[in-house]
């Protein structure tokens, strides 16, 4: 049970959030132009990193906002949170 700092509400318990998988996977603007393999890559293929991972989280039992989290999956340490559409902080 870790603590996540929602970029809109501040520090909250993990139980208020739901996880949304890997971040920065952009839905293709022109899906019909893609081959089956390319579409399947977008649809199904996700990294499952032991270590630092970029993730989407939703403050489901709070402001309902989606945002990005950089988390180390091996120890749950959260390195950064940032809003949707923002670039990950570079450090």
């Amino acid at each position, binding site marked *: 049970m870790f603590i996540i700092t929602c970029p809109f509400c501040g520090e909250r318990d993990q139980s208020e959030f739901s996880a949304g998988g890997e971040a920065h996977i952009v839905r293709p603007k022109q*899906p*019909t132009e893609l081959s089956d393999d390319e*579409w*399947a890559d977008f649809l199904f293929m996700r990294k499952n990193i032991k270590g630092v991972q970029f993730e989407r989280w939703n403050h*489901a039992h709070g402001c309902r*906002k989606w945002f990005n989290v950089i988390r180390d999956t091996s*120890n*749950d340490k959260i390195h950064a949170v940032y809003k*949707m559409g923002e670039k990950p902080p570079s450090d």
Partner: protein
Amino acid sequence: MSENFRSSETKFLDKTNRISFKYNGKKYYGYKGDTLASALLSNGVHLIGRSFKYHRPRGIMTCGSEEPNAIVQIGGSGSFTEPNVRATEQEIYEGLEASSQNCWPSVEFDVGGINNFISPVIPAGFYYKTFMWPKKLWYSLYEPAIRMSAGLGKSPTQPDPELYDHNHLHCDVLVVGGGISGILAASISADNGNNTVLIDDKNSLGGSTIFQDDENFKIDDEIPSVWLNNQIKNIKNKKNLIIKHRTSLAAYHSYNYLLARENLADHKSLDERSNKLRQRLWKIRAKKVILATGAIERPLIFNNNDRPGVMLANSVKKYIDYFGVRCGNKNVIFTNNDSAYETAISLNKKGINVTIVDIRNNSSSILVKNAKNAGIKIYWNHTVVDTKGYRRIKSIQIMKMSDDGTNVIGSKINLVCDNLSISGGWTPMVHLFTQSGGKLKFRDSDQVFLPNTAMSDQISIGSCNGDFELDDVIKNTNSECKNFLSASVTDYDSLTISCPKQKESKNIWLLPNDKPLGKTKPFLDFQNDSTAKDIKLAMREGFKSIEHVKRYTTTGMGTDQGKLANMHALGIISETAGVKMGSLGTTTFRPPYTPLTFGTIVGRNVGTFFDIIRKTPIHEWHENHKAKFENVGQWKRAWYYPKNNESMHQAVQRESKAARESAGILDASTLGKIDIKGTDASEFLNRVYTNAWSKLAIGKCRYGLMLNEDGMVYDDGVTTRLEENHYVMTTTTGGAANVLSKLEDYLQTEWPELDVWLTSVTDHYATASICGPNSKNILKKLFPKLEFNDENFPHMSFKNAELNGINCRIMRISFTGEHSYEINIESKYGKSLWENCIEAGKEFNITPYGTETMHLLRAEKGFIIVGQDTDGTMTPIDLQMEWIISKKKYDFIGKRSLYRSDTMREDRKHLVGLLTDNPREILEEGAQIVQDEKKQPIEMLGHVTSSYFSPNLNKSIALAVVKNGKKLKGQKLLVPMKDKTINVTVSDFVFFDSKNERLNA
């Protein structure tokens, strides 16, 4: 009368408060403050239970949570009964009833004891190896027999009548453990302005120092027990320190999130605890954590080291010094270190006969000198090779050890005794530290695992950090806490401490014997009966990893989770394999540290509080009209309304006929409703639904199908355009929350440029759905000002209206195929709306119908229910709903996936209708569908998804998904059941009014 073993006065017991309790049906007495173990020992009772596998007699070994043997059933046979309670932790109360476990007919004479004599043929892995064949005997013979002999205590068979609670706690500093180091840490923390919580699992603070009365130990010229007692008095007055007794830490998760169980009533009599909380689970979030969880004394591993009367030395000291109970009249202490000499001196001072056997050659400490000077006989460089006595130890045999410690030499010496106190050194309790993700290091000098790197803001202090002597504990606790809490000065900076002990011990994991290992029983895990022999057998059979050896031999898998056994298992593996112990690693320490009751885990979330129950505003009316309810998600929905002892089938048949012949009314308030506003609302709907929305006129309704990005049907419902930029979407009852979060997800992450705002309004409106040929006549009565002809108010359109001055939204939409209206009104007027409808419909015999009739009516029309006729693997094409997929739209959620090679396969499962050859035969939902029963293996073509007897068609109808179903229309298929095979024919899935004439009837 039996002998009284209470030999001295002690300040820890209330001698004015004598308590009677029953053990195995016999009445005994103890005092307030006694544990069940200390009270039994004071009555001379050592034999507590029988061991798990060999049914060997076992007695009390320890005085704490590490107890492997003395686990009992508490509270008779009623609903208060509880198995596997540690007698060493259970405080006695007036009327306590306890009994032995795992023995029949009694602990004194146990039939299962036969296992002890056949033990050579039941080694580790016996069950795995033996019960493999013949296979068919597993179910009929092996499993029932193993199950009968498995387990220890008896589970209660009635619901737990007691109250439990959960509570949250936030603090700056949490100190775990109320021994001397925990008390010092809590004091330093509170003095430095931190809101501090100190938790301890005992009923009073002080750990083992509080009964340290030996004047060779001094803190500032006071004996430790006196000095510590003053410290305890002192911290009790600190305002920012909360002390929680009888509270044991169960789990330590990441980010300093900890769970602790506070015991509020287990020490009270049943009368005192009625209607009061029994246990409370604390969910603690601490900024900093200080672990002062102490250490557990190690046993020594030698032949027959498990007899009642064999106890840990420090526990024997606690029983005499704290409880005033002597564990025997003739004691032998068997040790590899100095600490057991404290026990010897304590016993000697109370005039109790004691002899020491030490595997070391010598020790030059003051403590040992004092023991010698007191006239205590010490056998240096000797080891115990055997013990005698069945229900209680009677004598031991010792032999001299060879210089390298691997052999015994010379002749045996027999020592008569009724208690053997053993001490193999100390094991720091690093359980909580590792639960939190901490990594351990190994200290070779005394063979202990110690905290190394922590994952969160925490430190370990005292003996759980490897400081076992008083001077080290105080000095290091003080300096580490100062550093951790950034404190400049403390009360403990300049204490003078004298500690007369030598720190060296001599560690031999498996002591040598004159007999070969195969002829001895050196127990490691006393509860699960695994011996050094079993560990070596596992290694001979090829098990190398400690995790595998543990599971194969079950070492460390009892209710005590190997608190005493695990280090020895590791030690013997490392000795046998010739590898360094530090490189072996440990087994994983998992929560809870000590077992929790289910009651504590669930707290108040029982019965009606188990989950949220959602009721519609009309619920009370349904209840008053004898509705049966079904659970749909968290909702209670009216299922059917039986009249005059009708069966469900009869009620549903009547309701279904009435709805089609005159008028029916359904409470549809549970349907999900999402209010959609914004200038891009139409574009948004275009993207989330498969069909086109741009051209939907204001005041019109449209059915929409929503897919997942993988092309599978996700949800469906009717959306109404209320205004230019204002829609209200309905979703399935169960899907409402998921649909909203999915739509929010797309809006926020993929299409932030769209001006769209979503609000859940499911609970804001109540909905009455009136259907049937007379629905229009009823609406006319309710809303006399509205025109209900097909031109003004056609099917799939909406009107604002007023009922008794209250605004309503009326949608003319139909899920039954009948001419039908849905009236939405603010929730608080829901019941009134419903009653108005019933009143207006009286003359048309308006019939309330429930979800079952709704399902039947829509099945007659072949309308799907997402989640019943679909299961996340059905595309709209599979459902034969190609008509709802817009060919013009460039994109919508899931569109691309409809053109993947797999979704375009022609032989996917399709939704079809099924008609039974015998029209009275009703198929079972979920039944498998096949074509050829003789072909092996039988090919499963699909399954029945919905099945009813239609009163309007007077025959059985069913929906099913069948492989290649579109091409099978008219074909005969089979539905094999347990006792017969049902012949069916594939049909169209619209069974009733296929031209939709009734919508405008």
